[in-house]
């Protein structure tokens, strides 16, 4: 087994809000090997984006971090000065949901792409320009020379996201943090962007942390998927069997709540209530108040992440419910 590139262990993060520290991540652990993709799936407030931000060292000031967060054996939290700059400039790259907000609108694509090559790579601007055209070709943009002269507003969202990926390639990072990279794009460009990311990962052995709210997409592109709820990991699942064999009731409920493109149902099995945030979690299991399978013990006993099948589940009834969650008691309609 390869040594992990990214190792997160018992990560707890609290942020200051209105003078008090509020937990946003609770006991998050996972690891990521080179060349592999781990998906972080969850709804708002689940902590998936916060996890990525912690890895990128982009936490807001005043954040309290506990637990281990290591990149290539070195603690990310302890990085300072030059080492931190090197880490951010060369080791990890982030791809954002909305490429338009991550690029300076008044500078040409060429300036944006060649900047890192000229400054960090020490290239002449002619060489950097040639390299930029190569990079664009790698992400499937054939007429690179013309694109370099254009401004961001002249490109569609899908094209711009590919430019962002090309910029990532310029530094050839070892870890890509992709935060909902296709959510703001048209459906028809999603496959293309994901295919490019997959190919680059295979070619260059990059590791990818892929953050998404889309269970189906995560199952399709990730080697391992981590489902988060209220700041905790509730399920960790290898392979693509997330839907057929959910290990946690929340995963099952999410899969069922999503409308099916192949058939309409009279009523969707909605999850009652609203997602909670980590700092409001009741005693016991965070999902218990919305869970169709909850029993008395769920509200008193804090569940641990235990191995089951080809993954882990943070549910005290995981073993007993396995295989029955998708057909379990019909969920009650909820109104919050």
């Amino acid at each position, binding site marked *: 087994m390869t040594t992990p590139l990214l190792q997160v262990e018992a990560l707890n993060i609290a*942020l200051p*809000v*209105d003078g008090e520290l509020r937990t*946003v991540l609770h006991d998050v652990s996972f690891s990521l090997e080179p060349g592999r993709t781990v998906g972080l799936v969850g*709804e*708002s*407030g689940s*902590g998936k*984006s*916060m996890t990525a*931000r912690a890895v990128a060292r982009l936490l*807001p000031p005043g954040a309290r971090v506990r637990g281990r967060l290591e990149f290539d054996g070195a603690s990310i939290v302890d990085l300072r000065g030059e080492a931190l700059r090197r880490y951010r400039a060369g080791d990890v790259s982030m791809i954002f*949901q*909305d490429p338009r*907000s991550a690029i300076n609108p008044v500078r040409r694509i060429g300036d944006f792409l060649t900047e890192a090559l000229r400054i960090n790579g020490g290239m002449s601007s002619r060489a950097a320009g040639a390299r930029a055209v190569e990079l664009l070709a790698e992400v499937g943009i054939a007429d690179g020379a013309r694109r370099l002269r254009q401004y961001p507003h002249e490109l569609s969202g899908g094209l711009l996201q590919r430019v962002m990926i090309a910029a990532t390639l310029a530094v050839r990072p070892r870890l890509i943090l992709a935060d*909902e990279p296709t*959510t*703001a794009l048209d459906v028809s460009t999603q496959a293309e962007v994901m295919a490019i990311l997959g190919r680059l990962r295979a070619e260059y052995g990059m590791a990818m942390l892929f953050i998404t*709210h889309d269970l189906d997409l995560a199952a399709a592109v990730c080697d391992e998927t981590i489902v988060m709820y209220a700041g905790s990991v509730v399920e960790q699942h290898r392979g693509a069997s997330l839907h057929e064999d959910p290990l946690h009731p929340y995963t099952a409920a999410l899969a069922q709540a999503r409308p099916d493109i192949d058939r309409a149902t009279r009523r969707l099995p909605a999850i009652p209530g*609203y*997602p*909670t*945030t980590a700092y*409001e979690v009741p005693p016991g299991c965070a999902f218990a108040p919305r869970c169709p399978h909850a029993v008395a013990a769920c509200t008193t006993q804090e569940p641990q992440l235990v191995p089951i099948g080809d993954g882990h589940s943070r549910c005290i009834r995981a073993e007993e419910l396995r295989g029955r969650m998708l057909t379990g008691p019909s969920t009650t309609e909820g109104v919050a």
Partner: protein
Amino acid sequence: MTTLTAGEVEVTPPRRRTWGWTRGLGVSGWLSIGVLVLVLLLAVVGPLLASQDPNEGNLAQGFGAPSVEHWLGQDANGRDLLTRLVVGARTAVIGPLLVVVASTILGTVLALAAAWFGGWFDTAVARVVDAVFAFPGLLLAILATALFGAGLPAAVAALSIAYTPYMARIARSAALRERGMPYIAALRVQGIHGLSICVRHILPNIRTLVLANATISFGFALIDLAGLSFIGLGVQPPTADWGAMVGEGLAGILQRYPQESFYAGALIVATVAAANVLGDRLTTRSEGRS
């Protein structure tokens, strides 16, 4: 997590008390409010507090030193300085207050109308505003006093007009931003009257910004009017006024009695600084969320 997860919306909202427009002012903001409240209080009750006649002096006691009877000393005409400062607060504050009220109302109404009707009306308002911008407020005021005679009324009227464009410009861009929001479209689709949308919806959403700008304008208007009084075109003697007192104190400075100019000037600076700091804090806050 609310601010960190763009694109994700289902966040349990913080249950905290809202403090209305005073939220997040900080120490400097509250200090400024304190100073301004004191000054306004002085303007209201000042003349009632004065035990001595501000305009009656004993020429023999010109530039009298501080004493039990005259705590801050006397001016060139032997008038009690403390009394004149206390009484002068009202004249010093009332002018800028009128300027701010008039220019704020005028500017906001113009801005709302321009943002709501758009088209040629908006363009016309923008042109007029640009034209008035070209005239410095003080110059316009001097012109007005030349035409209608020295004194507060002409100066206040001129400054009110000169200050309107500032308010109109800021309020218009804020109102335009609101006008483009889906909730305004939803209100129109409901059949809510335009006037009602402007007054009940757009105005409350831009009011912090309007208030912030009004506060800053108050400081500037105070300086402008004090300046006019200083050069003798504003408040006329023997009425006590801070700006006029700075001017009247000039003679004392030459004779090593700088108290009058100093005290009056210090009050002006403190008031203007407080107005600016508070306006600045309010602006910052309204940018966060109005």
